[in-house]
């Protein structure tokens, strides 16, 4: 009998961690050039700290992009060479009136 939740990448769980970190950092803010670096750093650090507390045997990569809403587009693609049975990723797209945030988390089992 094994509990696969203890050692697998659970997308919903990670997605919640991401959303909470974004909301807590920039939820009520408008785009501000002077604060943007702090925000992106705070978001990735908060997410990584929360993921570490899940105590799963994973290495994590967290990536955050914040973009001002000015009308231009952003195109991204990613490719992963990993173990399909154990590894996973989660990308959350978030926006408010003045900016977009795109946060990706990749979890690779050890």
């Amino acid at each position, binding site marked *: 009998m094994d509990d696969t939740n203890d050692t697998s990448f659970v997308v919903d769980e990670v997605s919640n961690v991401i959303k909470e970190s974004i909301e807590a950092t920039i939820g009520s803010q408008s*785009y501000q*050039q002077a604060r*943007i*670096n702090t*925000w*992106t*750093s705070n*978001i*990735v*650090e908060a*997410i*990584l*700290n929360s*993921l*570490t507390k899940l105590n799963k045997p*994973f*290495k*994590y*990569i*967290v*990536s*955050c*992009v*914040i*973009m*001002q809403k*000015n*009308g*231009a*587009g*952003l*195109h*991204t*693609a*990613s*490719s*992963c*060479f*990993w*173990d399909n049975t154990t*590894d996973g*990723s989660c990308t959350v797209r978030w926006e408010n009136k003045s900016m977009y945030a795109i946060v*990706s988390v*990749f979890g*690779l089992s*050890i």
Partner: protein
Amino acid sequence: MSIDHFDITKTTDIIRKIIEEILNTNQYRLEHIDKWTRQIVDSCQRSLFEIQNSFKTIITAMIIPKTNENIHMSNACLWDFAVDGSTIIQWENDSMYCVVSAFALSLSITTQLTIT
């Protein structure tokens, strides 16, 4: 038994060449953008596998048109600093920016995970 270390210089060179080949002097074009980002990550993945296949690798590519946009990107990793590695390449021509990030995580059993 020695563990392969991530070769940042070689990886950076390979990725830069791939971006050059695919984007070159092309203008930012909505109908080609998806294809280009896909081609970049797929080529990078294949090329990196040929030089160091004892790593799990994550490649992400972003293409942004040159308008007055402000874009900021941050990455953080929980990994084994001794054997894992990453590189971020920024490239531009006169109509667009391209940012490619490559992360390589060793398949060897590691000891200490640290946040970077």
